[in-house]
Protein backbone atom coordinates (compact mmCIF):
# COMPACT_ATOMS: atom_id res chain seq x y z
CA UNK A 1 0.00 0.00 0.00
CA UNK A 2 2.90 2.31 0.70
CA UNK A 3 3.64 1.96 -3.03
CA UNK A 4 0.64 4.20 -3.71
CA UNK A 5 2.22 6.91 -1.54
CA UNK A 6 5.54 6.25 -3.24
CA UNK A 7 4.10 6.81 -6.72
CA UNK A 8 2.37 9.99 -5.55
CA UNK A 9 5.54 11.23 -3.86
CA UNK A 10 7.54 10.48 -7.03
CA UNK A 11 4.99 12.35 -9.15
CA UNK A 12 5.03 15.38 -6.85
CA UNK A 13 8.85 15.41 -6.74
CA UNK A 14 9.13 15.22 -10.53
CA UNK A 15 6.55 18.02 -10.90
CA UNK A 16 8.45 20.23 -8.45
CA UNK A 17 11.77 19.54 -10.18
CA UNK A 18 10.35 20.31 -13.61
CA UNK A 19 8.68 23.44 -12.24
CA UNK A 20 11.98 24.66 -10.79
CA UNK A 21 13.84 23.81 -14.02
CA UNK A 22 11.27 25.72 -16.10
CA UNK A 23 11.46 28.72 -13.77
CA UNK A 24 15.28 28.66 -13.97
CA UNK A 25 15.19 28.42 -17.76
CA UNK A 26 12.75 31.30 -18.07
CA UNK A 27 14.68 33.52 -15.66
CA UNK A 28 18.03 32.76 -17.31
CA UNK A 29 16.65 33.26 -20.82
CA UNK A 30 15.66 36.75 -19.60
CA UNK A 31 19.25 37.07 -18.33
CA UNK A 32 18.08 37.36 -14.73
CA UNK A 33 20.33 36.50 -11.80
CA UNK A 34 20.17 36.56 -8.02
CA UNK A 35 22.47 39.10 -6.43
CA UNK A 36 24.02 37.90 -3.19
CA UNK A 37 23.23 40.05 -0.13
CA UNK A 38 26.90 39.87 0.83
CA UNK A 39 27.84 41.61 -2.39
CA UNK A 40 25.16 44.27 -1.89
CA UNK A 41 26.21 45.03 1.68
CA UNK A 42 29.84 45.24 0.56
CA UNK A 43 28.88 47.89 -1.97
CA UNK A 44 26.72 49.80 0.47
CA UNK A 45 29.02 49.48 3.49
CA UNK A 46 31.31 52.52 2.92
CA UNK A 47 28.36 54.85 2.41
CA UNK A 48 26.69 53.64 5.59
CA UNK A 49 29.76 54.27 7.73
CA UNK A 50 29.76 58.07 7.64
CA UNK A 51 26.09 58.77 7.13
CA UNK A 52 23.35 58.17 9.67
CA UNK A 53 20.27 56.81 7.95
CA UNK A 54 17.55 59.38 7.46
CA UNK A 55 14.98 59.64 10.24
CA UNK A 56 17.36 58.75 13.11
Amino acid at each position, binding site marked *: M*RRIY*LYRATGIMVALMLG*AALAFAWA*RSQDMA*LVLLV*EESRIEAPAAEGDEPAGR
Partner: protein
Amino acid sequence: MGRTIEGVFWVAAYLAVILAPLAVMMVSPTPPGRSFLAELSVALAFVALAQTAVQFLLIARYRHVTAPYGIDIILKYHREMGLVAFGLLLTHPILLVVDRPAMAGLLDPLGGTAGTRPGNWALYALVLLVVLSLARKRIGLGYEHWRVSHALLGLAALGLAHGHIHLSARYAATAWKEGVLIAISALLVASFAWLRLGKPAFQIRRPWRVAAVEAERGRTWSLVLEPEGHDGIAFRPGQFAWVCLSRTPYSVEEHPFSFSSSAQAGPRLEFAVEELGDFTSRIGSVEPGRRAWLDGPHGSFSPDRAPAAGYVFFAGGVGIAPFLGILRTMADRGDPRPVLLFYGSPRWEDTPYREALEELGDRLALTVVYVIEEPPEGWTGERGVIDEALLARHLPREGIERMHFVCGPPPMMDAVEEALRARGIPRARIRSERFELV
Protein backbone atom coordinates in the same frame (compact mmCIF):
# COMPACT_ATOMS: atom_id res chain seq x y z
CA MET B 1 11.53 13.32 16.48
CA GLY B 2 8.23 11.71 15.48
CA ARG B 3 8.13 9.43 12.46
CA THR B 4 5.92 11.81 10.45
CA ILE B 5 8.05 14.85 11.24
CA GLU B 6 11.15 12.85 10.34
CA GLY B 7 9.50 11.77 7.09
CA VAL B 8 8.59 15.35 6.14
CA PHE B 9 12.06 16.58 7.12
CA TRP B 10 13.80 14.12 4.80
CA VAL B 11 11.49 14.96 1.88
CA ALA B 12 12.26 18.67 2.38
CA ALA B 13 15.99 17.95 2.69
CA TYR B 14 15.83 15.83 -0.47
CA LEU B 15 14.19 18.64 -2.44
CA ALA B 16 16.63 21.20 -1.05
CA VAL B 17 19.62 19.13 -2.21
CA ILE B 18 18.11 18.41 -5.63
CA LEU B 19 17.32 22.08 -6.28
CA ALA B 20 20.47 23.50 -4.65
CA PRO B 21 22.54 23.51 -7.89
CA LEU B 22 19.84 25.55 -9.66
CA ALA B 23 19.76 28.09 -6.83
CA VAL B 24 23.56 28.33 -6.83
CA MET B 25 23.73 28.78 -10.60
CA MET B 26 21.20 31.62 -10.44
CA VAL B 27 23.49 33.66 -8.21
CA SER B 28 25.48 36.45 -9.83
CA PRO B 29 27.94 36.36 -11.58
CA THR B 30 26.15 34.34 -14.25
CA PRO B 31 27.08 33.72 -17.88
CA PRO B 32 25.03 35.66 -20.49
CA GLY B 33 21.53 34.20 -20.81
CA ARG B 34 20.76 31.98 -23.80
CA SER B 35 17.55 30.73 -25.38
CA PHE B 36 14.84 29.19 -23.17
CA LEU B 37 15.52 25.66 -24.54
CA ALA B 38 19.25 25.86 -23.97
CA GLU B 39 18.75 27.08 -20.39
CA LEU B 40 16.09 24.43 -19.75
CA SER B 41 18.52 21.79 -20.98
CA VAL B 42 21.13 23.02 -18.48
CA ALA B 43 18.59 23.20 -15.65
CA LEU B 44 17.45 19.61 -16.19
CA ALA B 45 21.06 18.43 -16.27
CA PHE B 46 21.83 20.14 -12.94
CA VAL B 47 18.73 18.60 -11.34
CA ALA B 48 19.70 15.18 -12.72
CA LEU B 49 23.25 15.59 -11.43
CA ALA B 50 22.06 16.23 -7.88
CA GLN B 51 19.57 13.37 -8.19
CA THR B 52 22.30 10.99 -9.29
CA ALA B 53 24.40 12.02 -6.28
CA VAL B 54 21.46 11.54 -3.87
CA GLN B 55 21.04 8.01 -5.24
CA PHE B 56 24.15 7.07 -3.27
CA LEU B 57 22.63 8.24 0.02
CA LEU B 58 19.38 6.37 -0.65
CA ILE B 59 21.16 3.00 -0.75
CA ALA B 60 23.50 3.74 2.17
CA ARG B 61 21.04 2.16 4.69
CA TYR B 62 20.95 5.05 7.16
CA ARG B 63 18.29 4.16 9.68
CA HIS B 64 17.19 7.77 10.15
CA VAL B 65 16.53 8.04 6.42
CA THR B 66 14.91 4.64 5.96
CA ALA B 67 12.88 4.31 9.18
CA PRO B 68 10.00 6.70 8.33
CA TYR B 69 9.27 4.95 5.01
CA GLY B 70 10.70 1.41 5.17
CA ILE B 71 13.94 0.42 3.47
CA ASP B 72 12.18 -1.50 0.67
CA ILE B 73 10.33 1.68 -0.31
CA ILE B 74 13.56 3.68 -0.21
CA LEU B 75 15.19 1.12 -2.54
CA LYS B 76 12.20 1.30 -4.87
CA TYR B 77 12.36 5.09 -4.79
CA HIS B 78 16.08 4.82 -5.65
CA ARG B 79 15.10 2.76 -8.68
CA GLU B 80 12.35 5.13 -9.81
CA MET B 81 14.35 8.29 -9.26
CA GLY B 82 17.29 6.70 -11.07
CA LEU B 83 15.08 6.33 -14.13
CA VAL B 84 13.81 9.91 -13.74
CA ALA B 85 17.39 11.24 -13.49
CA PHE B 86 18.35 9.21 -16.55
CA GLY B 87 15.40 10.65 -18.49
CA LEU B 88 16.32 14.21 -17.47
CA LEU B 89 19.95 13.68 -18.47
CA LEU B 90 18.86 12.34 -21.86
CA THR B 91 16.84 15.50 -22.48
CA HIS B 92 19.97 17.62 -21.85
CA PRO B 93 21.66 16.91 -25.21
CA ILE B 94 18.31 16.48 -27.00
CA LEU B 95 17.14 20.00 -26.09
CA LEU B 96 20.51 21.47 -27.00
CA VAL B 97 20.37 19.85 -30.43
CA VAL B 98 16.75 20.95 -30.93
CA ASP B 99 17.84 24.47 -30.04
CA ARG B 100 20.92 24.38 -32.26
CA PRO B 101 20.95 21.39 -34.66
CA ALA B 102 24.62 22.07 -35.44
CA MET B 103 25.46 20.72 -31.98
CA ALA B 104 24.45 17.16 -32.97
CA GLY B 105 28.03 16.42 -33.99
CA LEU B 106 29.17 17.01 -30.41
CA LEU B 107 27.40 13.81 -29.29
CA ASP B 108 30.06 11.65 -30.95
CA PRO B 109 31.77 9.86 -28.01
CA LEU B 110 35.17 10.07 -29.72
CA GLY B 111 34.64 13.45 -31.31
CA GLY B 112 33.15 16.57 -29.80
CA THR B 113 35.15 19.02 -27.75
CA ALA B 114 37.15 18.55 -24.56
CA GLY B 115 34.13 19.91 -22.70
CA THR B 116 31.43 17.72 -24.28
CA ARG B 117 33.37 14.43 -24.33
CA PRO B 118 33.14 13.67 -20.58
CA GLY B 119 29.44 14.56 -20.72
CA ASN B 120 28.89 12.06 -23.52
CA TRP B 121 30.77 9.35 -21.65
CA ALA B 122 28.74 10.06 -18.50
CA LEU B 123 25.57 9.60 -20.50
CA TYR B 124 26.81 6.35 -22.08
CA ALA B 125 27.83 5.05 -18.63
CA LEU B 126 24.30 5.72 -17.42
CA VAL B 127 22.79 4.04 -20.48
CA LEU B 128 24.81 0.93 -19.64
CA LEU B 129 23.86 1.17 -15.96
CA VAL B 130 20.15 1.36 -16.75
CA VAL B 131 20.27 -1.44 -19.34
CA LEU B 132 22.10 -3.76 -16.92
CA SER B 133 19.60 -2.99 -14.15
CA LEU B 134 16.50 -3.55 -16.26
CA ALA B 135 17.80 -6.65 -18.06
CA ARG B 136 19.95 -8.23 -15.34
CA LYS B 137 17.98 -11.47 -15.11
CA ARG B 138 17.38 -11.76 -18.86
CA ILE B 139 21.07 -11.51 -19.67
CA GLY B 140 22.02 -13.79 -16.75
CA LEU B 141 24.14 -11.25 -14.88
CA GLY B 142 24.78 -12.44 -11.31
CA TYR B 143 23.46 -10.25 -8.50
CA GLU B 144 26.92 -9.56 -7.01
CA HIS B 145 28.45 -8.67 -10.38
CA TRP B 146 25.51 -6.40 -11.07
CA ARG B 147 25.95 -4.60 -7.72
CA VAL B 148 29.63 -3.92 -8.39
CA SER B 149 28.98 -2.74 -11.95
CA HIS B 150 26.07 -0.59 -10.75
CA ALA B 151 28.17 1.25 -8.16
CA LEU B 152 31.16 1.70 -10.48
CA LEU B 153 29.08 2.95 -13.42
CA GLY B 154 27.19 5.33 -11.12
CA LEU B 155 30.45 6.72 -9.71
CA ALA B 156 31.97 7.00 -13.20
CA ALA B 157 28.90 8.85 -14.51
CA LEU B 158 28.97 11.30 -11.61
CA GLY B 159 32.71 11.94 -11.95
CA LEU B 160 32.49 12.40 -15.72
CA ALA B 161 29.52 14.75 -15.33
CA HIS B 162 31.60 16.92 -13.01
CA GLY B 163 34.42 16.81 -15.57
CA HIS B 164 31.97 17.96 -18.23
CA ILE B 165 30.77 20.86 -16.04
CA HIS B 166 34.34 21.88 -15.20
CA LEU B 167 35.64 21.74 -18.76
CA SER B 168 32.56 23.42 -20.23
CA ALA B 169 33.48 26.35 -17.91
CA ARG B 170 30.13 28.05 -18.24
CA TYR B 171 27.95 28.00 -15.13
CA ALA B 172 30.64 26.56 -12.89
CA ALA B 173 33.32 28.98 -14.08
CA THR B 174 33.11 30.63 -10.65
CA ALA B 175 35.21 28.58 -8.24
CA TRP B 176 32.84 28.68 -5.27
CA LYS B 177 29.91 27.51 -7.41
CA GLU B 178 31.83 24.53 -8.70
CA GLY B 179 32.99 23.93 -5.13
CA VAL B 180 29.37 23.73 -3.93
CA LEU B 181 28.49 21.25 -6.70
CA ILE B 182 31.49 19.05 -5.93
CA ALA B 183 30.84 19.24 -2.17
CA ILE B 184 27.22 18.05 -2.61
CA SER B 185 28.32 15.08 -4.72
CA ALA B 186 31.30 14.26 -2.49
CA LEU B 187 29.20 14.26 0.69
CA LEU B 188 26.57 12.01 -0.82
CA VAL B 189 29.13 9.59 -2.27
CA ALA B 190 30.88 9.57 1.12
CA SER B 191 27.63 8.35 2.72
CA PHE B 192 27.78 5.34 0.41
CA ALA B 193 31.52 4.86 1.06
CA TRP B 194 30.64 4.62 4.76
CA LEU B 195 28.40 1.62 4.01
CA ARG B 196 31.07 -0.18 1.98
CA LEU B 197 34.22 0.81 3.91
CA GLY B 198 33.32 2.31 7.29
CA LYS B 199 30.64 -0.11 8.47
CA PRO B 200 32.62 -3.30 7.70
CA ALA B 201 35.44 -1.90 9.86
CA PHE B 202 33.00 -2.08 12.79
CA GLN B 203 31.49 -5.41 11.71
CA ILE B 204 34.91 -7.04 11.72
CA ARG B 205 35.03 -6.49 15.50
CA ARG B 206 31.65 -8.20 15.92
CA PRO B 207 31.88 -11.50 14.05
CA TRP B 208 29.23 -14.23 14.02
CA ARG B 209 29.54 -17.97 13.56
CA VAL B 210 27.23 -20.37 11.75
CA ALA B 211 25.88 -22.61 14.52
CA ALA B 212 23.61 -24.76 12.33
CA VAL B 213 22.01 -25.01 8.91
CA GLU B 214 18.86 -27.11 9.23
CA ALA B 215 16.75 -28.39 6.34
CA GLU B 216 13.07 -27.44 6.43
CA ARG B 217 10.23 -28.29 4.08
CA GLY B 218 10.04 -26.79 0.58
CA ARG B 219 13.76 -26.23 -0.17
CA THR B 220 13.97 -23.90 2.81
CA TRP B 221 16.75 -23.82 5.40
CA SER B 222 17.03 -22.45 8.92
CA LEU B 223 20.33 -20.62 9.22
CA VAL B 224 21.35 -20.25 12.87
CA LEU B 225 24.06 -17.76 13.85
CA GLU B 226 25.83 -17.22 17.17
CA PRO B 227 27.81 -14.12 18.19
CA GLU B 228 31.54 -14.62 18.67
CA GLY B 229 32.93 -12.68 21.60
CA HIS B 230 30.08 -10.15 21.88
CA ASP B 231 26.48 -9.92 23.13
CA GLY B 232 24.78 -10.06 19.74
CA ILE B 233 22.18 -7.55 18.60
CA ALA B 234 18.76 -6.38 19.71
CA PHE B 235 16.03 -6.20 17.08
CA ARG B 236 12.30 -5.78 16.70
CA PRO B 237 10.23 -8.76 15.52
CA GLY B 238 9.71 -8.53 11.74
CA GLN B 239 13.01 -6.77 11.07
CA PHE B 240 15.83 -8.16 8.95
CA ALA B 241 19.60 -8.05 8.55
CA TRP B 242 22.02 -8.27 5.64
CA VAL B 243 23.88 -11.52 6.14
CA CYS B 244 27.36 -12.04 4.68
CA LEU B 245 28.98 -15.48 4.79
CA SER B 246 32.20 -14.46 3.08
CA ARG B 247 35.61 -14.40 4.74
CA THR B 248 35.50 -10.62 5.07
CA PRO B 249 32.66 -8.15 5.74
CA TYR B 250 34.02 -6.06 2.84
CA SER B 251 32.59 -8.66 0.43
CA VAL B 252 29.70 -7.56 -1.78
CA GLU B 253 28.04 -10.96 -1.36
CA GLU B 254 25.44 -10.21 1.29
CA HIS B 255 21.70 -10.82 1.35
CA PRO B 256 18.76 -9.50 3.35
CA PHE B 257 17.04 -12.13 5.51
CA SER B 258 14.27 -11.62 8.08
CA PHE B 259 14.86 -12.72 11.65
CA SER B 260 12.73 -15.82 12.18
CA SER B 261 13.81 -16.22 15.80
CA SER B 262 12.23 -14.48 18.77
CA ALA B 263 13.38 -10.94 19.54
CA GLN B 264 13.05 -11.88 23.23
CA ALA B 265 15.46 -14.81 22.98
CA GLY B 266 19.09 -14.37 22.20
CA PRO B 267 21.84 -13.97 21.46
CA ARG B 268 21.34 -16.77 18.88
CA LEU B 269 19.65 -15.64 15.68
CA GLU B 270 17.70 -17.69 13.19
CA PHE B 271 16.91 -16.87 9.56
CA ALA B 272 14.65 -18.73 7.14
CA VAL B 273 16.32 -19.00 3.74
CA GLU B 274 14.65 -20.43 0.64
CA GLU B 275 16.72 -21.73 -2.28
CA LEU B 276 15.89 -19.06 -4.85
CA GLY B 277 19.08 -17.61 -6.37
CA ASP B 278 22.83 -18.08 -6.83
CA PHE B 279 23.65 -17.59 -3.16
CA THR B 280 20.64 -19.18 -1.48
CA SER B 281 20.83 -22.33 -3.62
CA ARG B 282 24.20 -23.07 -1.94
CA ILE B 283 22.98 -22.39 1.61
CA GLY B 284 22.55 -26.11 2.39
CA SER B 285 26.28 -26.71 1.88
CA VAL B 286 27.35 -24.06 4.41
CA GLU B 287 29.33 -25.78 7.18
CA PRO B 288 28.68 -24.96 10.85
CA GLY B 289 31.57 -22.97 12.31
CA ARG B 290 31.86 -20.70 9.28
CA ARG B 291 32.32 -16.97 9.91
CA ALA B 292 29.40 -14.64 9.23
CA TRP B 293 28.88 -10.88 9.33
CA LEU B 294 25.69 -8.97 9.99
CA ASP B 295 24.49 -5.53 9.01
CA GLY B 296 21.32 -4.86 10.90
CA PRO B 297 18.74 -4.73 12.22
CA HIS B 298 16.87 -2.89 9.48
CA GLY B 299 13.24 -2.45 8.48
CA SER B 300 10.01 -1.08 9.89
CA PHE B 301 7.84 -4.13 9.12
CA SER B 302 7.09 -4.81 12.77
CA PRO B 303 3.95 -4.94 14.92
CA ASP B 304 5.99 -3.11 17.57
CA ARG B 305 5.72 -0.09 15.28
CA ALA B 306 2.06 -0.70 14.52
CA PRO B 307 0.15 -1.28 17.75
CA ALA B 308 -3.32 -2.80 17.29
CA ALA B 309 -5.96 -4.84 19.09
CA GLY B 310 -5.07 -7.81 16.92
CA TYR B 311 -3.24 -8.77 13.75
CA VAL B 312 -3.90 -10.40 10.41
CA PHE B 313 -0.80 -11.75 8.66
CA PHE B 314 -0.51 -12.84 5.02
CA ALA B 315 2.50 -14.99 4.17
CA GLY B 316 3.46 -16.51 0.83
CA GLY B 317 6.25 -19.11 0.68
CA VAL B 318 9.38 -17.95 2.51
CA GLY B 319 7.47 -14.74 3.30
CA ILE B 320 6.57 -16.69 6.45
CA ALA B 321 10.04 -15.82 7.87
CA PRO B 322 9.25 -12.42 9.46
CA PHE B 323 5.92 -13.76 10.78
CA LEU B 324 7.68 -16.70 12.40
CA GLY B 325 9.90 -14.21 14.24
CA ILE B 326 6.90 -12.06 15.16
CA LEU B 327 4.85 -15.03 16.44
CA ARG B 328 7.77 -16.47 18.40
CA THR B 329 8.33 -13.07 20.01
CA MET B 330 4.62 -12.70 20.83
CA ALA B 331 4.64 -16.18 22.41
CA ASP B 332 7.72 -15.35 24.51
CA ARG B 333 6.07 -12.12 25.64
CA GLY B 334 2.84 -13.92 26.54
CA ASP B 335 0.98 -11.64 24.14
CA PRO B 336 -2.79 -12.41 24.35
CA ARG B 337 -3.87 -10.47 21.23
CA PRO B 338 -5.59 -12.51 18.50
CA VAL B 339 -3.65 -13.30 15.35
CA LEU B 340 -5.05 -14.67 12.10
CA LEU B 341 -2.41 -15.99 9.70
CA PHE B 342 -3.13 -16.71 6.03
CA TYR B 343 -0.32 -18.87 4.73
CA GLY B 344 -0.16 -19.53 0.98
CA SER B 345 2.00 -22.39 -0.30
CA PRO B 346 2.22 -24.37 -3.54
CA ARG B 347 1.99 -27.80 -1.85
CA TRP B 348 1.08 -28.96 1.64
CA GLU B 349 4.12 -31.23 1.96
CA ASP B 350 6.39 -28.33 0.92
CA THR B 351 4.98 -25.83 3.43
CA PRO B 352 7.90 -24.85 5.68
CA TYR B 353 7.55 -24.35 9.43
CA ARG B 354 3.99 -25.72 9.70
CA GLU B 355 5.05 -27.85 12.69
CA ALA B 356 6.53 -24.75 14.37
CA LEU B 357 3.25 -22.90 13.73
CA GLU B 358 1.31 -25.74 15.32
CA GLU B 359 3.42 -25.44 18.46
CA LEU B 360 2.96 -21.66 18.50
CA GLY B 361 -0.80 -22.23 18.26
CA ASP B 362 -0.66 -23.75 21.75
CA ARG B 363 0.94 -20.62 23.20
CA LEU B 364 -0.92 -17.88 21.29
CA ALA B 365 -4.46 -16.88 20.24
CA LEU B 366 -3.36 -17.92 16.75
CA THR B 367 -5.53 -19.18 13.88
CA VAL B 368 -3.72 -20.37 10.76
CA VAL B 369 -5.55 -20.60 7.41
CA TYR B 370 -3.45 -22.56 4.96
CA VAL B 371 -4.15 -21.81 1.30
CA ILE B 372 -2.65 -24.57 -0.86
CA GLU B 373 -2.35 -24.21 -4.63
CA GLU B 374 -2.09 -27.94 -5.37
CA PRO B 375 -3.65 -29.59 -2.30
CA PRO B 376 -3.27 -33.32 -1.59
CA GLU B 377 -6.18 -35.70 -2.03
CA GLY B 378 -8.80 -35.33 0.69
CA TRP B 379 -7.73 -31.75 1.55
CA THR B 380 -10.62 -29.93 3.17
CA GLY B 381 -8.91 -26.59 3.77
CA GLU B 382 -8.61 -23.58 1.47
CA ARG B 383 -7.14 -24.07 -1.98
CA GLY B 384 -5.92 -21.86 -4.81
CA VAL B 385 -4.75 -18.36 -3.98
CA ILE B 386 -5.78 -15.70 -1.47
CA ASP B 387 -8.59 -13.63 -2.95
CA GLU B 388 -11.47 -11.47 -1.78
CA ALA B 389 -13.90 -14.40 -1.47
CA LEU B 390 -11.46 -16.21 0.78
CA LEU B 391 -11.03 -13.11 2.92
CA ALA B 392 -14.80 -12.79 3.20
CA ARG B 393 -14.94 -16.32 4.61
CA HIS B 394 -12.25 -15.80 7.24
CA LEU B 395 -11.66 -12.15 8.09
CA PRO B 396 -13.21 -11.26 11.43
CA ARG B 397 -15.94 -8.63 11.36
CA GLU B 398 -13.90 -6.31 13.56
CA GLY B 399 -11.11 -6.60 10.95
CA ILE B 400 -10.90 -2.87 10.55
CA GLU B 401 -9.50 -2.61 14.09
CA ARG B 402 -6.67 -4.98 13.29
CA MET B 403 -3.36 -4.30 11.59
CA HIS B 404 -2.66 -6.26 8.40
CA PHE B 405 0.86 -7.35 7.42
CA VAL B 406 1.66 -8.82 3.99
CA CYS B 407 4.89 -10.55 2.91
CA GLY B 408 5.41 -12.90 -0.01
CA PRO B 409 5.92 -13.04 -3.78
CA PRO B 410 4.90 -9.77 -5.54
CA PRO B 411 1.81 -11.19 -7.38
CA MET B 412 0.47 -12.59 -4.10
CA MET B 413 1.11 -9.28 -2.33
CA ASP B 414 -0.65 -7.33 -5.09
CA ALA B 415 -3.66 -9.65 -4.90
CA VAL B 416 -3.89 -9.50 -1.10
CA GLU B 417 -3.54 -5.71 -0.98
CA GLU B 418 -6.26 -5.31 -3.61
CA ALA B 419 -8.56 -7.75 -1.83
CA LEU B 420 -8.05 -5.96 1.49
CA ARG B 421 -8.79 -2.58 -0.06
CA ALA B 422 -11.89 -4.03 -1.73
CA ARG B 423 -13.06 -5.14 1.72
CA GLY B 424 -12.73 -1.58 2.99
CA ILE B 425 -9.53 -1.96 5.00
CA PRO B 426 -7.88 1.50 5.15
CA ARG B 427 -4.40 1.80 3.60
CA ALA B 428 -2.99 2.91 6.95
CA ARG B 429 -3.87 -0.52 8.34
CA ILE B 430 -1.96 -2.46 5.70
CA ARG B 431 1.81 -2.95 5.98
CA SER B 432 3.94 -4.75 3.42
CA GLU B 433 7.56 -5.40 2.58
CA ARG B 434 9.00 -6.08 -0.89
CA PHE B 435 12.51 -6.86 -1.97
CA GLU B 436 12.17 -7.98 -5.61
CA LEU B 437 13.95 -5.01 -7.19
CA VAL B 438 16.29 -6.09 -9.97
